[in-house]
């Protein structure tokens, strides 16, 4: 475990994401204990672990939804530990949510437009976007990229679950993302939609790295080059997908030995 972490931290001089000793307490409960992770720019990594392993808490600490109780977080070399979420997002960090966090009262197009506007100037503009508004076009392209053009003028509350999951991803890809955190993007998707999700993830530009939390090993291990196993708020193992998949300890802990 140490050898992989050390190897990655050496390679990761100028890391995209660097966590050092991150701990998060909820009262007396330690949701995360002494997490140290280094992720290179463009690296794609899966975070695996059973429920309660601290995966989503890790995301919340990285984005600043909950600040860590101790430790430091660097994003492309900059110490963002005490930055509010929006400052981290403006620096190129993105995330999706396990339970879709959308704007149900607005249309699909407006949801994506807000995402584009959030990472550019003019957030407080009192002027309506015109016909040739660049961000409006960017939003339209993004809507198309996640196959939602047909419903772009519908309110999000009216969308099917799979469509909401696709919109969730579109919101995280607005602007110029440098690193994305995907929190169980395949949750509740049909096999066809999973295949589309894999296609979207693998066709992302090479410079965009991500961490993906995913229970479906068939999705997770096909779209990443490294894996971090978490257990009880600690890092349990790190390695390449094949190593993790064949590791007897991991199989016992997470796969219950039953995975083919």
């Amino acid at each position, binding site marked *: 475990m140490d050898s992989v972490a050390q190897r990655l931290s050496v390679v990761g001089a100028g890391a995209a994401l660097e966590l050092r000793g991150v701990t998060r307490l909820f009262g007396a409960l330690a949701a995360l204990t002494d997490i140290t992770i280094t992720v290179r720019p463009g690296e794609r990594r899966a975070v695996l672990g059973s429920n309660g392993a601290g995966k989503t808490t890790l995301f919340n600490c990285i984005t600043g939804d909950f600040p860590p109780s101790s430790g430091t977080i660097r994003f492309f070399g900059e110490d963002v530990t005490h930055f509010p979420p929006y400052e981290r997002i403006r620096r190129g960090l993105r995330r999706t949510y396990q339970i879709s966090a959308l704007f149900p009262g607005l249309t699909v197009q407006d949801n994506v437009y807000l995402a584009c506007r959030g990472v550019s100037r003019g957030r407080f*503009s009192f002027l309506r976007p015109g016909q040739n508004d660049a961000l409006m076009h960017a939003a339209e392209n993004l809507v198309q990229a996640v196959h939602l053009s047909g*419903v772009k003028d519908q309110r999000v509350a009216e969308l099917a679950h799979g469509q909401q999951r696709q919109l969730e991803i579109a919101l995280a890809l607005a602007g110029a993302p440098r690193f994305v955190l995907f929190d169980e993007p395949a949750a509740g998707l049909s096999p066809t939609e999973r295949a589309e999700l894999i296609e979207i993830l693998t066709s992302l530009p090479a410079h965009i790295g991500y961490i993906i939390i995913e229970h479906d090993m068939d999705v997770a291990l096909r779209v990443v080059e490294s894996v971090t196993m978490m257990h009880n708020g600690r890092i349990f193992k790190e390695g390449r997908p094949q190593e993790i998949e064949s590791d007897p300890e991991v199989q016992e802990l997470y796969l219950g030995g039953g995975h083919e």
Partner: protein
Amino acid sequence: MSLAHDARVPVRPATAVQRSRLRGWPDIDNPAAWAVAAILLIMPLIANGFFLIEIFATTLILGTMALSLMFLAGYGGMVSLMQLTIAGFSAYMVAVFGVSGNANISLGWPWWLAVPMALALATIFGTLGGALAVRTEGIYTIMITLAIGAAFYYFTNQNWAIFNGHTGINTVATPHFWGVNWRADIPFYYIVLAVAALCYFAVDYISRAPFGLALQGVRDNPRRMAALGFNVNAHRVAAYVFASFVAALAGVLQVWNYRQISPGSVSVGACIDILIIAVVGGITRPIGPFIGALIFVLLRTFALDFLVKLGLDGNRFRLLIGLGFLAIVFWSSDGVIGLWQSWRRRQRSGAASSSGRRGRESGQGSSQGSNHG
């Protein structure tokens, strides 16, 4: 597989008309809106001075105050009970900086200096209150803004140096220029109509501008807005700046309307009246507060005679308003607008299927029967 495919089939294909309606002015192709605009413009030909000022100008002033609440609550999800307080503060500032019967308090500035000063101070006042309120959510926002309203009411009652205690400031001067007395019924009606229309269209326009869209995003999911790069609290405070300015404009009109301002005009009851007006009218669209204000003013003005005719105490008009409030909130979560929209929907579906219409007729019959009973 077929399920996943079906999910991507557009349920309601977007047409060019729909798109233009979404981006453009919502009322431009609505004949009813044009009719209302025309009637409002020629109102002085139809209505006498009493109706013009006591009903319509008062409706527009109260509607504009409630519009500022509608902007905060409908788009921003922030129920502020201090919108009347901001308007009242603005009204007091017009009286304090301008000309009034209390020469030892009023500074005697001309209206064109006193009014911008009042607007600026009231906007700052509302913004400071908003900056306190945005750190809270839901019921705590209501409590903080209500506390500000109550504090201001008691302060005006007890402060004699600026607010002249419980007697307030009387015979406030109104503008005269270009040889026109702008407080005469017809010119004043047009001033009020112009300001109310300006505020209405501004709110309507901003609701589709980045600022307004982001505000609706903050209402729907503040945490996600932060995860999209928005400073949620700054956005909320900015909404208070705008809403405070709208309320302050209404406050100037109010003090010109009554030519006096006293603590009774900024009481906690009056603060709650604004909430009732906005909720009765409906807080999802900017027209709602004006509909609510018209209902409120009509009830306040005529319920007295109506109740006396029924042999009841005329002062119980608030009972009627309260019952109406209960009824509307009970049957429609979105006020009169919501009732009207659901009626239109039923009308349409009723026209589509005759069985539906028969069902409704029998429903009407039974309700008439119960009325007779």
